[in-house]
């Protein structure tokens, strides 16, 4: 009787190869390794726990179906992250169609940015742990509109360049630059407020 492969100790490329040949247990191990990471990306964009879980699951199903398209150009988690990001963008588009998002359309900055776009100075505070700072950044991200949050998540966390973000969001590079700029300005302002409120800066 052939010995069962040691999935938990196997290297990622080996697991991917096994999964490609139809080995569900190898795929299960990949899910176990990256499920949190994929969920975090979905949550960062959607800001909704239930939706983020559903989209993460869908991303894994799609990944299984498209495993033969993974040739290792990027790392496996990066490839997965792109899948879940695309699903999130599709979901945002679907939501937008459903609610005819007029409020967000008013907030949208697609043309020239405001006359003077001052960016606040935000100094990371000594004594504030990385975790605490991340929590404040996360809270500030939650206050951005879908479009501004998405562009900042794609650029800062997913590390996608302007051109690719424009393609994914179906917009121009100029609009991406403008949204990113507005998002950063808002983030700086929101972070400054929260740090001041907490007495961490004057």
């Amino acid at each position, binding site marked *: 009787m052939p010995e069962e492969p040691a999935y938990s100790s196997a290297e990622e490329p080996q697991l991917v190869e096994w999964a490609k040949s139809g080995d569900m247990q190898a795929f299960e191990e990949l899910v176990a390794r990256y499920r949190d990471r994929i969920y975090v*990306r979905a949550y960062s964009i959607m800001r909704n726990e239930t939706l983020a879980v559903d989209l993460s699951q869908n991303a894994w199903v799609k990944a299984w*179906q498209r495993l033969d398209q993974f040739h290792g150009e990027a790392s496996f988690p990066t490839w997965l992250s792109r899948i879940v990001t695309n699903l999130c963008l599709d979901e945002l588009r679907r939501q937008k169609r459903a609610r005819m998002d007029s409020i967000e359309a008013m907030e949208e900055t697609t043309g020239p940015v405001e006359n003077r776009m001052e960016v606040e100075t935000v100094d990371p505070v000594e004594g504030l742990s990385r975790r605490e700072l991340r929590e404040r950044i*996360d809270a500030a991200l939650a206050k951005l509109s879908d479009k501004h949050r998405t562009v900042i998540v794609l650029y800062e966390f997913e590390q996608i360049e302007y051109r690719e973000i424009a393609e994914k969001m179906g917009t121009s590079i100029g609009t991406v630059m403008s949204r990113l700029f507005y998002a950063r300005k808002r983030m700086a302002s929101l972070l400054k407020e929260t740090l001041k409120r907490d007495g961490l800066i004057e």
Partner: protein
Amino acid sequence: MNENEIQLKVQALVDGELTGREAEELRDRLETDAGLKEFYERLTAVRELMAGAELPRTLPESGDFHWSQISKAIECEERQAKHMARPASGANWLLRWVFPLAGIACLMLLLTLQQTRNPNLSIPLGSDHELELSIDDLDVMTFNTGDDNMSVVWLDYTINLQQDEIDLWLD
């Protein structure tokens, strides 16, 4: 270039998206423009603050449950794919072969009956004649010429598929 455009260019420089001559020109300008330099530094600070600052989270359901949902969805999709593939290939085969063959069989039967049951046709066998038969999915026309001892049969079979059947095949 207006102020907004310059600010966006500065941002592109901070992000490493501005290269070549444009980048060099902007860097030169930053050296002489204190306001723009300050703006560049603020933007750089925000970017550094954001870099890698995504809050780690844990999936709000157990790993086993998450996997069970994924594996169920995979199995379901695979079952559906198989289910959809079966009737599509069956329908394809039926439309490609059975219907045309049935049409030809009908035609042959008709011609046989015509010649055996009613040999004294009003059409003189020595002259050329045509016989036309039309059914829903099949148009048939025959041309007989006794002189050359030849029959020509035209079959005009148009596959008229519904759009959803086509989609089903394409899937």
